[in-house]
């Protein structure tokens, strides 16, 4: 694909901008900013990756993964419920644990090689999915605790511990966070040919090999999103309670 065709492709953006303007969705500014951000971020990453693509030194690989992790954790801050302190650190912790567990298993089983060109794309996918799941989790946790505070208090007044009093809310929140990943796994191949697989095929990898990779990634996404949301939700729900096990919202 040449640069000129890419520039022509950018004319596609005119459609959503017009729709947003006509329908008063107030999204034009957001859209333009996000596109500009995407372009700048991708160019920078492109250059970095060109330099280090064949690197195997653990320090380079790990540093790059860590940069992704930190950016992802920063991106969850807006969704952290008001009652929850240290949201960034909770998210970072959840992301680090979920990514390292899944990546370690795949590296140990030989499904993945410890090389920048394998680790970075795969971990990027895993972390971004986990990040989205955490964000959905935070949003719903806040909603569940504020909308259902009377139910939680009714359970507390029967002598329930915080975990039992908010069990339904925690379960619902967890489900909502992981369901998008499960649903997208269900439609893999039928509706969505995932980005990485398509990329591999476009770049000339035989489809069956690309599929093997995609199946592995799907496993990873499922387990990573589950681990990440579980950690983030279980640490943060406690902060809706004070020491006397009263709701502090």
């Amino acid at each position, binding site marked *: 694909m040449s640069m000129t065709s890419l520039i022509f492709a950018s004319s596609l953006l005119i459609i959503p901008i017009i729709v947003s303007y006509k329908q008063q969705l107030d999204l034009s500014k957001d859209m333009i900013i996000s596109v500009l951000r995407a372009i700048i971020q991708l160019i920078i990453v492109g250059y970095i990756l060109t330099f280090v693509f064949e690197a195997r030194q653990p320090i380079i690989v790990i540093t790059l993964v860590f940069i992704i992790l930190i950016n992802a954790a920063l991106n969850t801050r807006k969704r952290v419920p008001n009652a929850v302190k240290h949201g960034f650190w909770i998210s970072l912790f959840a992301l680090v644990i979920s990514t390292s567990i899944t990546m370690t298993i795949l590296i140990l089983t030989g499904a993945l090689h410890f090389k920048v060109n394998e680790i970075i794309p795969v971990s990027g996918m895993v972390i971004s999915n986990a990040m989205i799941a955490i964000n959905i989790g935070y949003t719903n946790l806040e909603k569940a605790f504020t909308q259902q505070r009377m139910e939680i208090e009714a*359970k*507390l*007044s*029967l*002598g*329930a511990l915080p975990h039992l009093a908010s069990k*339904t809310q925690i379960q619902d929140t967890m489900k909502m966070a992981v369901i998008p990943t499960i649903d997208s796994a269900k439609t893999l191949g039928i509706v969505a040919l995932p980005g990485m697989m398509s990329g591999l095929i476009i770049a000339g990898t035989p489809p069956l090999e690309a599929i093997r990779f995609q199946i592995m990634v799907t496993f990873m996404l499922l387990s990573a999103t589950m681990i990440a949301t579980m950690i983030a939700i279980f640490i943060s729900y406690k902060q809706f309670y004070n020491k006397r096990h*009263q709701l502090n919202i």
Partner: protein
Amino acid sequence: MLELKNITFQPNSSPILSHINLTINEGETVSIIGPSGSGKSTLLRLMADLISPTDGQCYLNGESYINYKPEQLRQTISYCPQTPIIFGETILDNVSFPAKVRKEKCDIKRANYLLTAFNLSQYDLNTNVSRFSGGEKQRLAIIRQLMYVPKFLLLDEATSALDHHNQQLVEQEIFKCHKEKGLGIIWITHDIKQSTRLFSRRLTIEKGKISNEEVIK
């Protein structure tokens, strides 16, 4: 014995309750009346340790609340909220919750006994409660509170949605627990007749203060 010593609750600039002093003996029955917004529910929520006073302290048997585990306290002094809240899907989900709290098996016999006493015997434990009427929800919420009889039961307009007959059934069963098991009752009501008929003491709350205290019998 339940004691409130110089309790003030002031979440923002103006106090909702100020300088409340109150002693309620074990097994005593007290009604609370007063205009809407005067702080009655807040008082009961303080007693149930669902909120903490901004000043002053509550005591149970001479020990400050702070020295009790919240769960232990709330199983002893149990608050039935003003709006009846239903848990889960079935009657069983509701009546078994107090057992779940104590990690015990649900006493099905007691559940069925209470359902009958509260005029809900046409339903069984697996009945779905999502379409329950306001009054049915209110009765189910009280049944849930009586699965284990606490030392003090705090009722917040517990029979506001009930007709006269059902109101009497609920009163009878609750006062039976008082007579047989020494249950102390603190009951907010807007029904003056109810407050004179049943209780040994009546408190009037106005603008966050106890404005009147009467011994009835």
